[in-house]
């Protein structure tokens, strides 16, 4: 299964993850 997130954010938004990285619930994905 897969979860896709689509969201609007200011252009200052930065991902804290990269493709291939393992994540767990509550881990930081990104911030403004």
């Amino acid at each position: 299964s897969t979860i896709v997130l689509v969201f609007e954010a200011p252009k200052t938004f930065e991902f804290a993850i990269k493709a291939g990285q393992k994540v767990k619930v509550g881990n930081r994905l990104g911030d403004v």
Partner: protein
Amino acid sequence: LVSAWTQTPTKWYPLPLAVGALLLVMIRYHKKSGRAEKEVHVDEEGHEVIKLKGPWQVHVMSALPLRNMSRVWGYMNSFELPIWIRPYGFRFYAYAFGCNLEEIEPSDLTKYANLGQFFNRQLKAGARPVDNVALVSPADGTVTRCGTIDNLHIEQVKGITYSLDALLGVEPSDPTPQETLACDKSLGVRKRSISGTSVRDGNSLYFTVIYLAPGDYHRFHSPTAWVVEKRRHFVGKLFSVSPHIAKRLKNLFVLNERVAFLGRWKYGFFGMIPVGATNVGSIKVNFDLALRTNVRGRLPPPGTYTEDIYSEASPLLKGHPLTPAQEMGGFYLG
């Protein structure tokens, strides 16, 4: 080898005409099929028509009764197992798929009557600390893609994209009474116009795709503080969504059955879309008990969906409010 390489005389001779012609035909076929892969078919309203595209293995797979297979798999895993076999069976499963048995609740493996229950296990309180940032992971898994959305297309894998409108669905514009009824009463609605994709000045649209492997914790949580205004249920195929298939099957995430939660957060539009797969065909949502996924019946055309509005959950917020990391629901076997 060295002497054979240096001393063997090279004899050049012309290729037969038929071989050359065959080569030209093959090159032409390759170019044509490459163009066909890139072609976008649109309907009379200019919206992209979702079609199955991929190598022959994908077409063979699409001929299989994947939805029925998924339901049989779920049914088989709903049988109650003998108590004595449960710890051995679930420990073997945990070993094979890398589950951490120390974080599950209850930790007594005899309490899980079957693999279906174990698959949808819950975690001990505090097992997943929540970062205090704008956006956190809604699930355990692997990030397959993330980035900005360009030209209203999301990248499935490098070089293969799918339409944002096809993923989220499109609201009917100027609905006729029949269309309004269809929208409200959960009948099929044909997409009409773009929705939820306009952004404010200074903002952009971003996306993240998280793949949940079989051994991962399969409940999903809210990734931020937001208000879910509506959900759209797209009945569809149940292809595997493993990275191996994602690389080969174009439009995978818009062909598969999925539930799109649409709403808003402090920066504007927010959408979350759990996508089902062959072994994990059912999606259940804690605050939407009416939702039924992977049920028997004929598949509607791709792009159609049923919609439910959550405005009654909170008339003030006009939707269902969620806090960061609040459990929303889960994926189930079958």
